[in-house]
Every structure is written in structure tokens, then in C-alpha cells.
């Protein structure tokens, strides 16, 4: 065993290190088991008593990826293009075109929209001066500012907006109450938000994206709205008749026999335009998805799942032209009714495009409940807001005012009296959570630019748990098969290789814990794969030893030769695979990085255990104990 001192030292040192880093994970496992077995008061008491310990252990334990513990991973992009538009004090058609082109060009997360924007301008017109769009006394942008000055200024503004967006998102996430959320900037304008244990995707999206644009608007004149509803219905009626007639013509050409039938069809159509009978619903595309109302400020009623189709129909410019001037249509935030078969119905309301007052004037907001115990958000305004609010309410007694948050109407109460003192409220909320989220968004402030969710992965807790189970089973079964095979094929050598393999797995997990890496499902796949591939080094060595023995060497000499001759193969083969891991890590995202990390950890650990640990064991068996080691 002379000369093996350093090897023994390294092995022991690594084992102690692995144990040190894995201990919190083992503790965490035991604590969680205990927590799961307790209920009610006992659970609370245990949690109180061990609070500090649980915190400490969880912090240092091996972290599970969101795909295993369940949770949401959201990638948000800050709309720099919208910011550019907002910063512009004057725009024209050229500006819009260039901005759209820049957005197209800067497809990747790192590319700068601002650079693309400036470059596109200069490409179209080398003498273009951006200053004509961005003149701004406050920020010292004058007519004489050069394009590069403006580009720098835009960049500064954009960076600031992204940083502020991160700050606001962090506040919202904190108020939502997630344990150990992670919010990180990625590239120049993306933010990655990780929320463990969260599975209410809809609510989180609303919370993250909510621009909290609170508006108070007047509503459509009932008579005008009702008249235009009739016109729009008739417009679709004509459209439907036209398409039916067109198809009928085709059919008539195809087969003369169907002519009579086609005539019969079109006569029903004419009939339905004249008399509003039951038939209408089936032929008019609008009435297929929307039930018309035309009373008060309600335009129609639509089932939640039909809103997308209704939006498509109403997006037609000709339809928009039929709406009363200065009126737009908006949905209610919560369903006004539910049908017998469980479909939730929203009302579509006529709202003025003109905004009377915005949420800027809100100084404080909180959740409380009305007399019917329904949740609501009460808001307090500043002096200026209170003055405006008194004026607006005073001028519109007995008329409804819409309270609009992010383009959805929360409530549209009739004004009964002039409101002084600057108080208002948002009602029509579905739950206490919703009220809480609105307060959160209002309090954290408006986002500096609109944000868009460009990627999202959510895994529910039960799917995560079943992934852990599947992963663990795979590790255990894979390990069992490989270890049995090694013993069967290499006898004593196989047993030694199996010991190395077990230590190898401990090292891998230890390395992951030490570097604070996260264990993901692909990461577990990486461990399983490593179990199969890690024995390769020992296979190489054992095959060499067999060859040397066949060539007539003694056991000890054969082992020596086997290790030294196999070394260069093992080294070359592992270095190349390691590089692949590095590359996978640098270009991959999320769970794939987890795979790359386990792959790399596996390579380092398996080289150490296959070259150093097995060698130690053989030296001990052959050198000290003079055992006759079998290599199959």
C-alpha cells in the first residue's frame, strides 16, 4: 500500500465532503416525512419549534427542479418597442413601420431592439434625424441631438425600465406569498420568474402581466348602442346570406338536381332577415356566439369559451365602423350568469374610448367586504383626483361609470350622488384572492412598459411527485440490473466496480448539492445514464487486465498494466464527453442544464471512482491480503 497514502486521503476527504454536503438533504427528507405525518395543531407546533432548523436545512438541501416539486417557470419579455413608442413625442407612419421592422429583426432575446431601430432608420434614410420624434425638454433631447445620443438615451431608458419591471414583479411575487421565488434578469430584456409550488397559472399570469391600468370611463348611450347592435346583426345577416348564396351557386354548378334545394335555403334566409325567428341563430355567425341584448349599456352576452371567436368577428373594420362614435366594447371581469350546462357568461359592454381619470391618482387601496360579504377593493385618491372625481360624478348622476382595469370592466355602478372626498371602489370581484391581487398590483405600481409572457412551464404537484417516483424507480432498477450484470460478468472485479459505482452516485449527488445545482427530471435521467456509462472505465480496465493475464502476466502485474494502459483511453473518452456536457450547459435552458450538470458531475465522479477507488481496493486485496481476484 506504499504510495497509496494520497489516494486514501483523497478518497476519505471526498467521502467526508460528500457526506457534509448531503447531510442537510437527508435531514430535509426526514423532516418532510415528519411534517407529512403530522396534522393540525401538532403540525403547527412542530413547525414553530423547529422553524430555524427547517429553514436552515431547506436552504442547504439539494434543490429539486420545478418539474419535480411542482411550480411555475415563467419567462417574461419587457416590451421595449412599446417603450420606444411611449418615449416618442411625435410619431408618423415611417416611425411605425421602422419600429415594426425592428421588432421583427431583433428576434432573439439578446439582440437590441433599439440598435435595430436606429439601424433600420439609417438604412431607409441615411439623413434621418431621430430627434424629430423624441424631442423632450425634460431629458434634454433637442432638435440638435444626434442619433447616437438618442440611441444611448433610449438604451438607458430601456435598461431602467427592465430593472424597474423586475423590482415591481418582485414586489408582486413577494406579496403573493411564494416560498423561495427566484427572479432573474436574462439577456437584455427578459426576466425569468420561478415560483415553486405554485399551480394557479391563470392567477400568476394575471399578476405578472397586470399593468394595473386603472381607468374611469363613461359609457355608451343606450339608444345609440341598441341601434348599432341592430345594424351589426344585419351586417352579419347579409354576410351569411352572401356566403350561403355563393356556396349554393357552386353546388348548382356541380349538380343541377340540388337547385331546388338551394332555392329553398335562400328563401329561408330572406325570411329570417325580415322576421326575427328562431332560424336566425343558426345562420348568423354573430348570433351563433353572442346573445344580443341592446338594453342599457349591455351590447350582448357571450360564453367565456366563445370570446375569441366573437373578438374575431368584431375585429372586422366594417363592424367597428357601425359602433357609435367614440365607443368601444369591453367584457365584464366576472361572469354575470352561468348556464344550466355550466357555461359562464360574460357581458359585452359599450364603453367610451375617452378616459375620464386614471389610477395615477390612487394613493392607497385595500381589500374589504361589502354588506353582502362580497370582496371589494376600496381606494383613496389624492387631492387632485378627489376634485376630478367629484366633478365627474357630479356631472353624471343617474348614469353609469365604468371602472376598467387592464381593459376589463370590473363594475359600472350608476352614480347616485356627487362623490366628494376621493373614495372609490372596485366591486364585481370573484374572490378574496382576486381583490388581494388587484391591491398588490395597484400598490406595486404600474409597470414601466407592457410585459409579455414568452415562455411558461407549469408542473402540478401530483405530476411532479409521480416524476420523482418514476425517476427514483429508474435509478434503483437501473442500478440493480447493472450491478448484478457486473458481478455476473466480472466476478470479484464486478463487486469492486459496483462499490465504485455506489460511491460514484453519492459523489454525483454530493457535487450537485455542493454547487447548489438543481435536480431536474432530465437530471435524474442523466444519473440513470451515468450508472450505465460509468462502469465503462472499469470495463476498459478489466478487459485490459484479462488481456494481460491471457498474455501470461501475474495478477499483480496484470492489474498494474491494465490500469496504466487503459488510462489514456478513459481520459480521452471522458474529456470529449465532458466537453459535450459543457456545451449542452451553455446553450440549454432550465431542465436541460440540469441534465448537463449531472452528466458532467457523473464524468468527474466516475473517473475518480473507477481509477482511484477501485485501484485502492485491488491493491488492498492483492497486495495486503494476497487474495486471488477473479475477473470473470
Amino acid at each position, binding site marked *: 500500500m506504499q504510495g497509496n497514502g494520497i489516494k486514501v486521503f483523497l478518497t476519505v476527504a471526498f467521502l467526508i465532503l460528500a457526506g457534509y454536503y448531503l447531510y442537510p438533504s437527508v435531514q430535509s427528507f426526514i423532516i418532510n416525512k415528519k411534517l407529512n405525518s403530522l396534522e393540525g395543531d401538532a403540525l403547527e407546533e412542530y413547525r414553530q419549534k423547529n422553524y430555524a432548523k427547517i429553514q436552515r436545512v431547506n436552504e442547504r438541501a439539494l434543490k429539486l427542479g420545478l418539474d419535480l416539486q411542482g411550480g411555475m417557470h415563467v419567462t417574461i419579455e419587457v416590451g421595449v418597442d412599446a417603450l420606444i413608442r411611449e418615449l416618442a413625442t411625435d410619431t408618423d407612419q415611417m416611425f411605425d413601420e421602422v419600429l415594426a421592422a425592428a421588432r421583427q429583426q431583433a428576434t432573439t432575446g439578446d439582440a437590441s431592439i433599439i440598435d435595430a431601430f436606429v439601424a433600420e432608420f439609417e438604412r431607409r434614410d441615411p439623413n434621418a434625424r431621430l430627434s424629430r420624434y423624441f424631442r423632450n425638454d425634460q431629458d434634454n433631447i433637442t432638435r440638435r441631438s444626434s442619433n447616437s445620443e438618442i440611441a444611448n438615451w433610449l438604451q438607458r431608458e430601456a435598461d431602467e425600465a427592465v430593472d424597474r419591471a423586475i423590482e415591481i414583479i418582485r414586489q408582486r411575487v413577494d406579496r403573493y406569498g411564494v416560498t423561495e421565488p427566484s427572479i432573474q434578469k436574462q439577456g437584455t430584456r427578459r426576466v425569468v420568474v420561478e415560483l415553486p409550488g405554485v399551480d394557479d397559472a391563470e392567477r400568476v399570469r394575471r399578476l405578472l402581466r397586470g399593468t394595473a391600468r386603472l381607468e374611469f370611463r363613461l359609457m355608451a348611450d343606450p339608444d345609440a348602442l341598441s341601434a348599432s347592435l341592430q345594424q351589426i346583426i344585419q351586417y352579419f345577416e347579409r354576410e351569411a346570406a352572401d356566403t350561403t348564396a355563393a356556396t349554393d351557386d357552386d353546388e348548382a354548378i356541380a349538380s343541377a338536381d340540388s337547385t331546388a334545394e338551394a332555392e329553398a335555403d335562400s328563401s329561408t334566409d330572406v325570411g329570417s332577415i325580415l322576421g326575427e325567428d328562431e332560424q336566425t341563430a343558426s345562420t348568423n355567425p354573430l348570433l351563433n356566439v353572442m346573445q344580443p341584448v341592446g338594453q342599457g349599456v349591455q351590447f350582448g352576452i357571450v360564453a367565456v369559451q366563445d370570446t375569441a371567436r366573437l373578438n374575431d368577428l368584431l375585429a372586422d373594420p366594417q363592424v367597428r365602423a357601425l359602433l357609435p362614435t367614440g365607443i368601444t366594447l369591453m367584457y365584464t371581469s366576472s361572469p354575470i350568469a352561468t348556464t344550466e350546462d355550466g357555461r359562464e357568461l360574460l357581458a359585452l359592454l359599450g364603453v367610451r374610448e375617452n378616459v375620464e381619470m386614471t389610477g395615477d391618482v390612487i394613493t392607497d387601496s385595500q381589500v374589504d367586504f361589502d354588506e353582502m360579504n362580497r370582496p371589494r377593493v376600496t381606494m383613496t385618491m389624492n387631492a387632485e383626483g378627489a376634485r376630478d372625481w367629484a366633478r365627474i360624478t357630479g356631472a353624471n348622476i343617474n348614469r353609469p361609470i365604468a371602472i376598467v382595469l387592464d381593459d376589463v370592466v370590473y363594475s359600472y355602478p350608476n352614480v347616485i350622488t356627487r362623490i366628494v372626498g376621493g373614495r372609490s371602489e372596485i366591486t364585481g370581484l370573484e374572490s378574496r384572492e382576486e381583490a388581494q391581487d388587484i391591491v398588490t398590483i395597484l400598490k406595486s405600481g404600474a409597470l414601466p412598459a407592457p410585459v409579455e409572457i414568452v415562455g411558461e412551464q407549469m408542473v402540478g404537484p401530483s405530476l411532479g411527485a409521480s416524476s420523482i417516483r418514476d425517476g427514483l424507480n429508474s435509478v434503483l432498477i437501473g442500478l440493480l440490473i447493472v450491478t448484478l450484470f457486473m458481478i455476473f460478468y466480472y466476478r470479484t472485479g464486478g463487486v469492486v466496480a459496483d462499490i465504485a459505482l455506489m460511491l460514484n452516485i453519492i459523489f454525483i449527488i454530493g457535487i450537485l448539492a455542493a454547487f447548489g445545482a438543481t435536480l431536474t427530471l432530465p437530471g435524474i*435521467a442523466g444519473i440513470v445514464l451515468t450508472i450505465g456509462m460509468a462502469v465503462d472505465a472499469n470495463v476498459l480496465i478489466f478487459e485490459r487486465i484479462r488481456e494481460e493475464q491471457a498474455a501470461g502476466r501475474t495478477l499483480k502485474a496484470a492489474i498494474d498494466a491494465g490500469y496504466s494502459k487503459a488510462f489514456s483511453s478513459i481520459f480521452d473518452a471522458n474529456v470529449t464527453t465532458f466537453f459535450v456536457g459543457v456545451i449542452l450547459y451553455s446553450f440549454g435552458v432550465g431542465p436541460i442544464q440540469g441534465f448537463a450538470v449531472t452528466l458532467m458531475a457523473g464524468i468527474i465522479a466516475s473517473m475518480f471512482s473507477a481509477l482511484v477507488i477501485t485501484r485502492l481496493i485491488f491493491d488492498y486485496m492483492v497486495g495486503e491480503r494476497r487474495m486471488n481476484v477473479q475477473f470473470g
Partner: protein
Amino acid sequence: MRIFENANYDFIGARKKAYILSGTLILISLISFVVRGVELGIDFRGGMEFVVEANQELPVAPVRSALSDVLGEEPEVKTFGENALLIRTSDEGEINTVQAQIMETLTAEYPDANPTLQKTDIVGPRFAEDLKRGALYSVLGSLLVIFVYVLIRFEWRFGATAVAALFHDVVVTLGVFSLLQGIMPFSLQIDQTIIAAFLTIVGYSINDTVVVFDRIREYSNLYKTMPFPTMVNKAINSTLSRTIITSATTLFVIVVLFIFGGEVLRGFAFAVGFGIIAGTYSTIFVASPLMLELRQRSAKAAV
């Protein structure tokens, strides 16, 4: 137990047959690639994917037609493990609206099934571009790095043929994905996990090839008078046992992953499993013979 001890197969002699086989496989793969294409997963194509779990089995076809009505386009609907459906749509509508439309429709159609959302995967079109680029870079990058490393450690012929063998493995595996898509009972869409699988194949195959090359290098110092083809053949034969054993242990764990690893890892396990078979074959029948060809060609040129 020993297999392939003192193996002495004439691999080099059979190389013409191997070229024909590999050539045919690559041709079929490329044709299938052009004709059938590969199905890109949500990572690279963009779109929304929802896994909805219920307490009873939901029928695929009726769900698909019910959702087509609501979404205005036909979504992809597949079973996902037990009692769960995977619904994929390229709808570019607002996420919450699409999700609400799907969930409300399912709840309305199957009120007793209590459908719950278990998984979402949403990739915006521009994010998909980023991921696609990342995937391409990682595949090309690893091939380049491997080429350079083998170049430094061995010589250019080794590097070039090693990379050629890797191309062979990746193309043939992609070909299998293209040919079998829609036929297998699990997803064969190319997504990030499959790219990770390809890189694993690349890593495995290069590992395999390097071991043989290493032996060839060792033998060229040892048997200076032996004709090069004989030496290459001897190197392949003496490493054959190791090549097969390592393939076997790796295939064992891959089969385990395929069976027990769950729905998410099935495509990954399939790709790696197939790639390992291809990689083992290419080490023996593609990389070494091709290297020999290159060597002989330059030897002739020198004369």
C-alpha cells in the same frame, strides 16, 4: 463469463457491405427527412401545451372535436399516461383565454371527470426561435469541439472520421424519428430533451470511437511492420468485448428509463437507445474503416 475473447472477425474486409448499409440508411433517413420531415416539438415551433388530468379516461376524438369548435382550429390531443390528455395548440390567442376555453369546455362536456390542469408548456414564437438557435449551436458546437480535440490528441484523419461517424449516428437517429413519427404510441417530436439525447449520443459515440482509435494508436507504436488494415482490424477486435459490454450496460439503463421513467422521458430514452446501437455500429463499421480509407488514399498520393 467471457464473450468475444480472442475475437478475430474480419470487420475491415466487410467494410464495403457496411458502407452500402450505412449509405442506404442515411439515404432513407434523408429521403424521409425531405418527404415526411420531422415533427418539431413545442420548444422549437412555439405554441401552447396543456396536460389535463381527470379521474376517468377522457376520449381523445370527441375532446378534439369539441375543442376544435371552441378554439377555431384543430388542436393536437393525445393520451398522456393514465387518465390524462395532452392538448397542444398553435393558437396565438391570449394564454388565459385559451386555457379558460379548454378547461371550461372539458368541464362542461365531462362534468363528472373533474378535469384539472397538471402541466402547461407555453413557448412564444420568438422564444422558440431562441431555443432553436441554441439547439443548433449546441449540436454544431459539440461536433466542432470534438473534432478539434480528436485533432489535437490524434491526427486530422481520426478527427474527421470520428465526426463523420457522429453525423452518421445523428442522421440515422433523426431518420428513425422521421420514419416512425405518428406510428409509435409515444411522442417523437423533436424538442429540447431530444436535442439533449442527440448530444448524449454524440458523447457516447465519440467515447466509443476514441477507445478504438486509442488502441490503433497504441498498436501502431507496437507493431510497426504490421500492415495498417490488419492492425486496425486487430484493434477493433481486441476492444470488441469492451464495446459490446458498455453498450449493453448503457442499453440496460436506457430500457429501464424507457419503461419506468415516465411519459416525459420516453422519447429521450428511445432516441438514446437507438443512438447507442447506431453509435456502436458506427464505431466498428464506419469510423475505423473510413479512417483507413483516408489513410490509404494519402499513402497512395505520397507514392
